[in-house]
């Protein structure tokens, strides 16, 4: 029996997108989530994206890799990705799997994640502004 396809809501706050995962993702839902995210980034020209994993207590290699992939793809589309609220157990699993998400910025919680994104965006604007 095919598992029910679940779509994760993606919210927009200012220039940033926020997606909070509250459930254990099946592979199919996860792929759908990735596609939705990239589409939204393309559609909104968001400068940053926060994936909040506070409520996630189990992550497998597929989801771990997918998060890394999303970060890379989003970077190609000009958006920074912050992963926030990883649980200790999840972090241990990911490092044991060798998926330590090198290209991803991490934050303790959603609030700090937004603060980091704001800082990054401001930095980029400053350097761009200084160029001409």
């Amino acid at each position: 029996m095919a598992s029910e396809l679940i779509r994760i809501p993606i919210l927009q706050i200012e220039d940033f997108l926020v997606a909070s995962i509250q459930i254990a993702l099946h592979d199919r839902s996860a792929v759908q989530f990735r596609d939705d995210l990239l589409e939204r980034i393309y559609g909104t020209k968001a400068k940053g994206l926060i994936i909040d994993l506070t409520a996630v207590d189990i992550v497998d290699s597929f989801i771990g890799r997918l998060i890394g992939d999303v970060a890379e793809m989003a970077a190609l589309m000009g958006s920074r990705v912050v992963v926030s609220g990883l649980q200790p157990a999840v972090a241990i699993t990911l490092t044991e799997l060798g998926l330590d998400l090198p290209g991803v910025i991490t934050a303790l919680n959603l609030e700090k994640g937004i603060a980091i994104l704001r800082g990054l965006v401001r930095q980029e604007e400053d350097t761009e502004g200084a160029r001409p």
Partner: protein
Amino acid sequence: MSLTFAELLARNKEGIVQELARLVKEKAGPTYATVPLEQLLPRMAVVFDAMHQAISQQVPQAWEEFVETTVRRRVGERYALEEIQALISMLRDIVLRYLQAAYAEEPGQQIACILQMEDLAHRARQRAFEVYLRHYEEKTERQQRVLAELSTPVIQVHENILVVPLVGAIDTERARRVMEELLLGITAYQAELVIIDITGVPVVDTAVANHLMQTIKAARLLGAQSILVGISGEVAQTLVHLQIDLSGVVTRSNLQAGIEYALERMGLEISPKGEELSAEAMEEASESGDSRSQRGQEVSGWPAN
């Protein structure tokens, strides 16, 4: 028709209990020696009754249970295992002597009774041994738990800054615990910087370095940056020789440098109390004697009044 084993015991109860109590008091060991004879007598009578019941009703299991509960109580009262074993042997010896005398004419009956007594004594020794073993196992486990808690302290030195001082050899088990405690500490304190101090770690090999890197990576996934401090010259040599890649990890020579770096990252610094403060303290001191202004006075070396 001669007496059965149980009848023989019942008839000689007084004598057996008396002799056992006296013998135990004299020879079983230091703890029994401190117990007055009047207290030992009823206790030995209880032992005798349990044995008698086991023999008359053919229930050695009940005897085992009796031994177990009694010995467990004695463990708590700090009786040594040797003392318990001595008591069991004494009881066995006394009973065997009675058997020898009573069944001198009936070797078949004698052997059957001796075997029965030996069986009970054997069961009792076995049970006593198990109780003691379990007791010490539990004790060791408890101590290991305490030691484990002591060996992985996570200390908050400032808002957002944790220090994890590691002392002693690190094996896989301990590395795992350090990682867990550290990650839990990060989420509990919402810390952004973690200073891992390995001054007290005598040997850093590939395994330890690998554990450290894993911990640092996991901490980063939570959103906390790690600072590795206290790498001695020797450890630095080993790390380079083993070609362990610590790039991407901030390292500082000692804990002080680590804390300074961490504070700087948070936009803070430790600075001496300057002129400004003493002026402020003077002002405050003239108005009220609160603790802060008093501290200011001490620092700037003014007379207390």
